[in-house]
């Protein structure tokens, strides 16, 4: 029996890989014109990285407030189907406007239609593990709702950590937990593909001299983002080591960016601005705290960005031009930063009670390997290569495969949304070409 006979076949106009804001924008535009779209999202919720952020620069809009209505529009659009916890295993181009993808749907072990999101399974589950959606700041259960504004907001069972005790099954009022679910494979036929696979954050363990994971009060910017979010785990900003409210916080910019020693020579484009934003938010929530940002160059280039930077300076955020070389810990959990103060021309040391590593943007690798008979070219930094970057920025090396958002390189939210718009426009004209044949 060949694979095709085993798999259920689904037909769409466009397959969008990745349900973050860029993929979502492309999908919505295409669906609004009337095309049938399938979004395949690897995580348990759509909304990408943005839905997990606190507020967004330079307008300080609440990220959830902007993302949730978009996510909700995507979820209920009659022309959009969303698979979460799913990924394409193979995409084959059979000819122009003829793509076939094998999509793997991982079991959630929960009947998505029946689950009401009541969270009784969470209460019943005896297993606690680290919560990846809170970037390790707190724990979660093995039966869990990914996060409070997830879409779909239904439970999932983390089978890796589940001990199969059955407590969740017994607690579930609509009886929607189903351990018999198995992997499903679908054969998805589509006329075009949009890759919106987003980015990965730099892993600061690669710079041991910054002491991440060794020193409790050194955290990443994404962890700080969660501490500042409306759905924040501690309901205030605390340093993880002892739960003390920090009053002297340092930001180390370019952690993992513009750094050939970790293999990433390029600038991540967003860290300066998100750090400045976090500094402003911290001054709001911890009015007595001192914030120092150690930087090489402040890249405040977008609309309203430089003004936002100036505002932070006026608010009293201290900016020190210099690279941090090493971080050491004192007995009380405070941290000593050894850095080059470029303006003073000497190496100095400074003490802070909490350090935030402004980690950079890395390519989310692997999508190129999914393409079967044609090559999806990557650029020297392993982002998806834009084959006609100046005239058609969404084009890739494969006709009919387009790229949206940070899959092609670091960019901020406004740029990702415009890039998502561009991908939908170019997909439309590719599809129109078939219609006119």
């Amino acid at each position, binding site marked *: 029996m060949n694979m095709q006979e085993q798999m259920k076949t689904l037909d769409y106009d466009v397959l969008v890989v990745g349900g973050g804001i860029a993929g979502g924008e492309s999908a919505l*535009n295409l669906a609004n*014109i009337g095309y049938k779209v399938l979004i395949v999202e690897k995580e348990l919720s759509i909304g990408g990285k943005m839905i997990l952020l606190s507020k*967004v620069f330079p*307008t300080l809009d*609440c990220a*959830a*407030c*902007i993302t*949730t209505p978009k*996510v*909700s529009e995507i979820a*209920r659009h009659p022309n959009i189907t969303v698979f979460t916890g799913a990924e394409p295993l193979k995409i084959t181009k059979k000819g122009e406007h003829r793509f076939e993808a094998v999509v793997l749907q991982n079991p959630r072990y929960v009947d998505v239609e029946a689950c009401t*999101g009541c969270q009784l399974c969470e209460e019943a589950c005896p297993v606690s593990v680290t919560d990846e959606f809170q970037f390790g700041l707190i724990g979660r259960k093995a039966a869990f709702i990914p996060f*409070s*504004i997830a879409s*779909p*907001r239904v439970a999932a069972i983390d089978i890796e950590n589940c001990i199969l005790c059955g407590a969740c099954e017994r607690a579930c009022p609509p009886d929607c937990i189903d351990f018999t679910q198995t992997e499903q494979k679908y054969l998805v036929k589509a006329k075009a593909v949009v890759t919106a696979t987003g980015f990965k954050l730099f892993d600061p363990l690669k710079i041991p001299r910054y002491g991440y994971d060794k020193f409790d009060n050194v955290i990443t910017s994404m962890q700080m983002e969660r501490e500042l979010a409306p*759905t924040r785990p501690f*309901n205030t900003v605390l340093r993880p080591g002892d739960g003390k409210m920090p009053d002297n916080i340092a930001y180390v910019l370019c952690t993992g960016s513009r750094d050939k020693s970790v293999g990433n*020579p*390029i*600038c*991540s484009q967003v860290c300066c601005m998100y750090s400045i934003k976090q500094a402003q938010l911290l001054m709001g929530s911890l009015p007595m705290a001192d914030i120092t940002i150690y930087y090489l*160059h*402040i890249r405040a*280039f*977008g*609309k*309203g*960005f*430089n*003004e936002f930077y*100036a505002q932070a300076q006026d608010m009293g955020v201290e900016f020190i*031009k210099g690279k941090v070389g090493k971080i050491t810990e004192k007995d009380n959990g405070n941290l000593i930063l050894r850095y080059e103060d*470029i*303006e*003073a*021309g000497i190496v100095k040391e400074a003490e802070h009670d909490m350090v935030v590593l402004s980690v950079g943007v890395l390519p989310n690798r692997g999508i190129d390997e999914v393409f079967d008979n044609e090559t999806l070219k990557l650029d020297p930094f392993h982002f998806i290569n834009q084959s*006609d*970057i*100046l*005239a058609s*920025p969404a084009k890739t090396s494969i006709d009919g495969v387009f790229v949206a958002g940070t899959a092609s*390189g*670091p*960019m901020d*939210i*406004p*740029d990702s*949304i*415009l*890039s998502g*718009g*561009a991908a939908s*426009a*170019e997909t*439309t*004209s590719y599809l*129109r*070409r078939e219609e006119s044949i």
Partner: protein
Amino acid sequence: MKKKIGVYVCHCGGNISDYVDVERVRAAVEKEDGVFLAKTTMFACADSNQKEMVNDIKEMNLDGVVVASCSPKLHLLTFRAVSERAGLNKYNYVHANIREQVSWAHSDDKEGATQKAIKIVEAAIAKVRHAESLDPIKVKATNAVAVIGAGVAGMRAAIELAEAGSEVFLIEREFFVGGRVSQWDNLFVSEESGKELITRLYDEVMKHKHVTLLTGAEVVENSGSVGNFEVKVKITPRHFKLQCNPGELDKAIEVCPVEIPDEFNFNITKRKAIYHNYPSEYPQLPAIDMKNCTRCGECEKVCTAVDFSQKTEYRNIKVGSILLATGFDPYEPKKGEFGYGEIDNVVTLPQFKRIVHYSKDKLMYNGKEVKHIAYIYCVGSRQVDGENKYCSRYCCTATIHAAIDVKKKFKNVHNYHFNRGIRTYGKQEVLYDESSRLGDIYLQSFEHDPPIVEKVGNETIVKIKDILTKDQELDVAADIVVLVTGMTPRKDNSIGNLLKVPKGRDKFFNEIHMKLRPVETVIDGVTIAGASQGPKNIMESMNSALSAATKSFSLVASGELALEPTIAEVNEDTCEWCGKCDEACPYSAFEKIEKNGKFIAKVNPAICKGCGMCLPVCPANSLNLIGFTDEDVEDMIDALLPNT
């Protein structure tokens, strides 16, 4: 009067509930007349809560709904859609803003904030009691788009719109297409030349039978509104017939005796009154600049295509949407700014690029070979005292790219970059790295301590207190000083004024919302693309052009538009035209008509935005705002007043 009103009070995570006691708000309004149900919710806008609201409305037959949450700018439409999905006409929904107007504004006074929130929700309930079901106004939309500006963004948008299936009018003020990019040689990343990129786009534009390109054309009048704009285009003749002999054309240019500074080359060269900006420019036909032509008739003698009888034409065009891609002007330094206009070898970056373009074996300026080049960054951008507080985004990369090009093209060139912190964001970083490896020297100062350009004897000296070398005073004798001028909004804003497109603090066209609606403006049907919205490089301009094309297309494609019914209406019995409403209206929605033997005001429903500016000025009280009657507003005010 409503009897089954549902009220939802949102925590907004903690954005509201950290300062407003939402449970107290809920309890206080629960007892209001007509309130059937009052709930609190963590995120009213979240999908799960929207589902719950739909169920509530359906199961309990709610006849009015209030959500107390953030600004209606964010979520009015979200909750109207919830009502609609539940089968309740969306105008039975009223939004109460207790975040921007309460929790964020009064974070220092929790008790006061809670009391204010209660009042605001009570006022919304007072309004929803009167709410009536309304139907949107349907207007037909013309499936055509006017794209203003045929630079790279405008041309790209035109191509996309035509491919998607709209009729496109591409309107360019100049006689030639290509905008600023045609003034550039090698372009960063692809290394194709500006001309090559323009050629590719122009060929695509001309391939589409649904694109009409109008050059020498300007929109001079606009009436109508979204779906049905009627624009009047003034087309200035180029005074050349389409059919002509290329040899004769060159001859005509040659014999023209008029010489004026060439704006295309930023006045570093001269051109004739008959001109094209460069050979084979598109459209491949020169034009006669009638402002400077002396009518000597020399050209007519050598070229049969010259036609002085061509007249200015006007063309009326009907379109459903207008896409603005009007680009930018380079900043023009003031006389004396870093020696500009006073020291002869101080030029701007755009001029420098033209100088490089025209230099062959050696880089020459004013008859002298150039070896030492000083670039001064952020001229006209990030100003401490001036108006331009913004960063122009493209210039760091553009300058470094130009500096590398110069080094590759000419021998013994030394580049000195007087910068304020290099902003080669993203992958552009590799260029900065390359230039450093090629030996370019970077010197930096902060905003308040810029470099100084002086003439000392025969030499032009650039001095800086360099923070990269512990504030050492350094100076460079430069053969040419290049002022890295930023992007500024177009000086000529006639199209912006005509369409009433608002501008941001930076004076570029302003979008509705940077993340939710980045290419739309508050003028329905008018979208913005490229550098007209703010500084951008080419790729970014393309992304915004393609996004704007998508938005314009989705507006006009269906052939019909639904507009807000909450607009002004005229009481025809009591109105005696006095024109006060017309004067007060910011959108020109009023028209004077004759009816039943008298003159009265008439509202154009496609133009009226329901802003209400006309209501208070009407001496006969003949105007009413649908959905915001006097009774509604008076009851809301009563609800807001302190309890007696």
